[in-house]
């Protein structure tokens, strides 16, 4: 660990999962998708439905590392008026009712840079954000946001990938805190899925380099895989599958059905069931 004091919610949650003897479910949704009001209802019900950690996507017009499902969700949110201010407002409203479930903001650097790094860190911290995942900020650009974020008391969660070899891993892990997000496939979100054996091997490799909890994502779609992956790693991340469920629900004018909020919560409940058997 870096030794930097942070909100502690992420560490506490992983410790609790460990004590309960089970892996965790991390859900990813894009903030404001399909619209602010519907999303707020989805967000507020996620912990009760079984999400152990929540990743909130910060919408971006050009999500280079994401597949079609998450690209589309970003555009839907933006078209519905999402911006950084509203994303942070969602976190505040969530925190007003839930003091324990960690929230990690995930996205790309430009909207943060545009908002102003210092202002962003202050506002994110006070809204109740616990960690950041910024896809296009590798360790080579740590001075931009990672180091200031750690100093501001936010976790900076880094992606490790199959191309991150043993030689590079220490560089990637150096300023990582909260947990390590292992991207289990070469590619973009929501396309391929990884073989369980490969993931197991990769997680073991990561464990040789770090004591941080490890979450595995990219390509995880079913309750079965969630449980499988979380038996070797500390948590499974499901994103594109949930986001796609939103897309499938919308009518031709992009409006959600009355049942969407419940449908997402039921889906999350099902995904998490395997972890609580």
């Amino acid at each position: 660990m870096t030794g930097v004091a942070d909100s502690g919610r992420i560490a506490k949650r992983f410790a609790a999962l460990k004590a309960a003897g089970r892996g965790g479910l991390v859900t990813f949704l894009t903030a404001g998708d399909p619209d602010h009001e519907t999303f707020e209802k989805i967000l507020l019900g996620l912990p009760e439905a079984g999400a152990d950690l929540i990743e909130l996507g910060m919408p971006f017009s050009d999500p280079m590392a994401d597949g079609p499902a998450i690209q589309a969700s970003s555009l839907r949110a933006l078209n519905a008026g999402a911006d950084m201010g509203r994303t942070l407002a969602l976190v505040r409203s969530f925190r007003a009712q839930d003091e324990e479930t960690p929230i990690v903001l995930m996205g790309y650097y430009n909207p943060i840079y545009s908002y102003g790094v210092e202002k962003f860190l202050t506002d994110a911290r006070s809204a109740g954000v616990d960690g950041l995942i910024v896809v296009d900020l590798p360790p080579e650009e740590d001075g931009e946001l990672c180091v200031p974020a750690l100093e501001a008391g936010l976790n900076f969660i880094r992606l490790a990938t199959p191309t991150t070899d043993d030689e590079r891993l220490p560089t990637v892990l150096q300023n990582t805190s909260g947990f390590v997000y292992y991207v289990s496939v070469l590619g973009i979100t929501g396309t391929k899925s990884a073989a369980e054996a490969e993931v197991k091997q990769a997680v073991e490799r990561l464990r040789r380099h770090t004591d941080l909890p490890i979450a595995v994502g990219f390509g995880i779609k079913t309750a079965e895989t969630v449980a499988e992956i979380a038996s070797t790693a500390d948590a499974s991340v499901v994103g594109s599958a949930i986001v796609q469920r939103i897309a499938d629900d919308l009518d031709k004018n992009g409006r959600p059905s009355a049942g969407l909020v419940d449908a997402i919560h039921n889906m999350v409940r099902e995904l998490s069931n395997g972890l609580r058997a």
Partner: protein
Amino acid sequence: MEQANTFRSGPNEAGHFGMFGGRFVAETLMPLILAVEQAYDAACKDPSFQAELDDYLKNYAGRPSPLYFARRLTEHFGGAKIYFKRDELNHTGSHKINNTMGQILLARRMNKTRIIAETGAGQHGVATATVCALFDLPCVVYMGATDIERQQPNVFRMRLLGAEVVPVTSGTGTLKDAMNEALRDWVANVESTFYIIGTAAGPHPYPAMVRNFQSVIGNETREQMLEAEGRLPDSLVACIGGGSNAIGLFHPFLDDPTVQMYGVEAAGHGIETGEHAASLTGGRPGVLHGNRTYLLQNDDGQIIDAHSISAGLDYPGIGPEHSWLHESGRVNYVSATDAEALEAFQLCSRMEGIIPALEPSHALAYVSKVAGDLPKDHLICMNMCGRGDKDIFTVAEALGTKI
């Protein structure tokens, strides 16, 4: 801004030109970006790499391209003496081959077996498909669906050359989306694939590497101008989308204080309409496609679509070195509208018998604005970076003619 003794030393080791540039990519790509940098550094130190490149540029691409005195346009404007650097005479019809040849030789050194590229106007796509045919490597070119529509001749040329042209419908279906899609492909195929980026942008080392491959333009111009006039040019003019032809012309002259430089951005329907592609004139610094640079973006940092009649300039960003040269004041960045470019396109066709691409037509539009007021001994060199065959359908439509 720090006062520099030289404008030619960038980027630093981290790939920064002042605050611009850098390596803003996903971790999956990072090891590969470092490998490209290492391979490129090694190639630069290996004389056989440059020798092989020079040989292909000379015997395959047809370099050096001539420096041509445009007598009739000079007389027409009645002021400065106008020269064209004839990079439109290169094989494939633009300056793009200078860079694709360099990068494919590098890809071969790295034992990569598959090539991807993005393209806007299709010139870079054609130049990439060409070198892939030459070296028998499979080639996938990402091109916005909107651009495919307006650049049909180049799409067909790429397919004739054996490339797969993938239409990109995500986002707005233009160059920036094509670049997103190429990056997505690269992330999924890092081990086999080399990404030939077409402009002096993207993550380090691409901006420096593309600039160096394109600097052949400026280096030749320098020699040719000395031979023709016995001195350096007074002004250099080039159009700017990402800015590879401009940086190629400018870079060798950056430390010659008497040489003024003008980068001409696409003003589309006019800067004041908001429908343009002038990142420096109408944008602000941000991070996209691996580098920090000036971008067209809204208050929330969302990228705004560019607009230009020229598909090759239709990009909401610009190479990071241009952003730095803009802030340091060494290069002047100006703009020309669609209408001004169209007028220059027709003027050049009729007065010089050269049908220019719509991209350099923007540069010529700027020349036409200033040449008349400059003294007759003022030497302007404009980079004629592409030929206009590909644009005849777009121009016909703009002029209300059916062909």
